[in-house]
């Protein structure tokens, strides 16, 4: 079932969406949220879509069961997507013709500043949600900060439920969930924040940039409780250099940004690599070039992140496909950064950043934080960049022992001092690249799902995971032999992990949120295998199940 709430910025639709999502999760349903918004604080046209089900929901879909139109524009734009049996909830004061309308006298139910709560009550009642669960969700949300509005909120909720009980218009009710499981309602950015805290993040620097900003704000909100430092830097260049300084001094550090901000950080990436300083960089993608579409989604920066930083050095790039993966891959990124002493990337996008999901709690009490290197060193003098078999040198922290820790962005000797000795240079290049072999040995295999030897194999990466899975399973239910190969780690690529799947498939199609097929190109570069057909989306919106099926002519 798909609920779409639409209206102008400032009408409180995110509040309705958030509270409805929370009430649904607390009632035991799974949800998948897609948020569409414009680069403005008031007016314009925004949407908050909640896909809900008793089982796990995949990606976003277009077909709408319940359209909550806070303005005429929403009704006009999305009426075509209304399923038979669907319903449009709209203010009785708005002039609109046609059927499947539930015209709500919001003015009678609530004072205008509470009309979003009235809308919430109407939707909850239509779906058959428990009024008590909704009331508790409201008090948890407003109770602490605004106790004075709670009474009115509850009265409006009651009035909305009461009004609905007298209506004949209905929408498909949700099947009840018996003994609902306790789950969290979490979006991608929140999961990244929690994952990083669980890994022991102690320093985070940022410059605000949509769609990464909520990672920063979540972490800032927990800084005092969790004992970490969050600093809004003067620019992205400062942010990454601060994180490198903090990491060099010995604390797990991370930065988060989007394409343009990341472009400013690029020299810092190279610095982290050269000084072998652990660092995690989160890049929440939005469409470019330049300022592009600030509040929309895309997968255009794989090649940017892969090649960012001058010179040659190893890296790993994770591209979480779900909110849970955001949590776990952030932990993994911090852990690998620490062990391999260099930059590790997490590549997400606006869709995933803002997509709320119902996820099981994480076992944060038993998940170990990253262990910051405290290698015992017996040799004198201490060599920060000692040549080793693995390329990983014993790391000490400045000021913690009497050993001196010296790092240089110039080519350096084993003790970290600047050198132009070209034989040393050669050894150091080899040492740094050696770490790439270790990273390669730990690559997460792409996820293969569906028929073996399929007629059609869909290749995807990152946040499109759910939509691609669902498109494939719909095709399978129509009797087609379809499989999916999804990459949640996009670098390094290890051909042995997936070449067999590519070769066994009748046809391979890559599905990417960019205009040129960046992963397909990368696979060809690394394996020689050319994925000829591509389904590409670059209009700023996330893949929906329908959009994939349409492109595949299904």
């Amino acid at each position, binding site marked *: 079932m798909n609920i779409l709430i639409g209206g102008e910025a400032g009408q409180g639709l995110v509040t309705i969406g958030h509270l409805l999502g929370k009430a649904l999760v607390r009632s035991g349903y799974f949800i998948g949220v897609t948020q569409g918004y414009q680069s403005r604080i008031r007016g314009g046209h925004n949407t908050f879509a909640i896909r809900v089900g008793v089982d796990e929901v995949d990606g976003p879909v277009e077909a709408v069961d319940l359209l909550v139109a806070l303005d005429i524009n929403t009704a006009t734009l999305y009426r075509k997507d209304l399923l038979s049996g669907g319903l449009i909830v709209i203010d009785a004061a708005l002039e609109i013709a046609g059927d499947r309308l539930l015209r709500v006298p919001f003015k009678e139910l609530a004072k205008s500043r509470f009309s979003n709560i009235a809308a919430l009550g109407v939707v909850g009642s239509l779906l058959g949600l428990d009024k008590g669960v909704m009331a508790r969700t409201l008090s948890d949300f407003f109770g602490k900060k605004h106790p004075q509005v709670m009474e009115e909120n509850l009265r409006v909720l009651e009035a909305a439920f009461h009004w609905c009980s007298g209506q004949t218009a209905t929408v498909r009710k949700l099947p009840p969930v018996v003994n609902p499981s306790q789950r969290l309602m979490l979006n991608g950015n929140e999961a990244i924040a929690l994952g990083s805290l669980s890994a022991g993040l102690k320093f985070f620097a940022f410059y605000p940039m949509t769609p990464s900003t909520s990672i920063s704000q979540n972490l800032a909100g927990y800084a005092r409780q969790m004992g970490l*430092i969050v600093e809004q830097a003067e620019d992205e260049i400062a942010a990454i250099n601060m994180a490198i300084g903090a990491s060099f*001094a010995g*604390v797990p550090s991370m930065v988060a940004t989007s394409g343009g901000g990341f472009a400013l950080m690029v*020299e*810092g990436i190279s610095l982290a690599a050269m000084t072998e300083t652990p660092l995690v960089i989160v890049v929440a993608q939005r469409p470019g070039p330049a300022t592009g579409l600030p509040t929309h989604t895309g997968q255009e920066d794989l090649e940017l992140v892969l090649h960012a930083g001058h010179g040659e050095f190893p890296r790993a790039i994770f591209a979480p496909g779900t909110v849970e993966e955001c949590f776990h891959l952030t932990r993994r990124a911090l852990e690998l950064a620490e062990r391999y002493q260099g930059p590790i990337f997490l590549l997400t996008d606006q869709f995933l950043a803002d997509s709320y999901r119902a996820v099981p709690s994480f076992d944060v*009490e038993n998940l170990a934080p990253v262990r910051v290197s405290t290698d015992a060193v017996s040799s004198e003098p201490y060599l920060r960049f000692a040549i080793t078999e693995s390329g990983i040198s014993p790391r000490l922290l400045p000021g913690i022992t009497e050993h001196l820790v010296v790092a240089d962005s110039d080519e350096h000797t084993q003790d970290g001092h600047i050198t132009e000795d070209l034989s040393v240079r050669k050894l150091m290049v080899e040492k740094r690249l050696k770490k790439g072999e270790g990273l390669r040995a730990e690559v997460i295999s792409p996820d293969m799902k569906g028929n073996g030897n399929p007629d059609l194999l869909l290749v995807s990466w990152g946040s499109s995971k759910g939509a691609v899975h669902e498109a494939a399973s719909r095709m399978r239910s129509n009797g087609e032999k379809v499989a999916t190969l999804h990459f949640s780690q996009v670098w390094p690529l290890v051909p042995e992990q997936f070449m067999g799947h590519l070769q066994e498939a009748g046809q391979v199609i890559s599905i990417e949120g960019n205009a040129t097929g960046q992963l397909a190109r990368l696979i060809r570069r690394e394996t020689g295998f050319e994925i000829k057909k591509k389904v590409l989306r670059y209009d700023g919106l996330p893949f929906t199940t329908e959009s994939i099926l349409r492109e595949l002519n299904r």
Partner: protein
Amino acid sequence: MVTIDDYGEYETAWCPGCGNFSILKAVKQALVASQQEPHEVLFVSGIGQAAKAPHYLNANVFNGLHGRSLPVATGAKLANPELTVIVESGDGCNYGEGGNHFLAAMRRNINVTLLVHNNQVYGLTKGQASPTTAEGFVTKAQPEGATSAPLNPIAVAVVMQAGFVARGFSGMIDHLSELIQQAIAHPGFALIDVLQPCVSFNKVNTYAWYKDRCYPLPATYDPTYWEGAMKAAREWGDKIPVGIIYRNDRPSFEKHFPVLSQGPLVGQDVDRVMLKRIMEEYG
């Protein structure tokens, strides 16, 4: 007992007669006078001839990117406030490429000493104009003479009410060393703009040019009087004052972080019980 020998003696890549030698000597003297052990000190530098200085003594060193020393120093100081953090780099690095960080560091008042080797020219790239180059100064890159007005770093720092603002001269080693000691002891951001000759590329602002002009501020000068400091900061030409131009007692940046009251961030545990509680708020 820390002695000058603890800081070592190394071969450098500088031109004979460079002002950097005197500054290096003053730095070592100041560290010894402050009884700082080499492992308690972290030097952060950028790129340029001045930025190589930390390689020529014994200490922890992070020699990073051009212009970016202050952010690295800020991160390191926050992670471990027990480190004595000194940024050492040139006028191009700190006032040009890193200009925004210079302003932000003063606003934060991070407890870091910034030592700017100011020779009014780019040395390592062979003589182009720097942010402090005088208007009309002819270089290969500015054959008609530099066309931008020079930055006055001292005046900027005083306007920003930076915690500690001083000017030194490489030709006055003991005076400079004393300034560095006080800057290290100052609990907040400390700028020392050190005038120095570039023997290869600045034939105007030579050792003799500075020596004729630099004079120590009199004992009666009050560096806590901001209006007076503004006046001293603008004094440039036949007479150039050296010494502490301005100081105040703003709380240092680190004091704003409650977590640091428990000691350095380095080595602090993760409160997993608290994290569980935070996570449950999403339920």
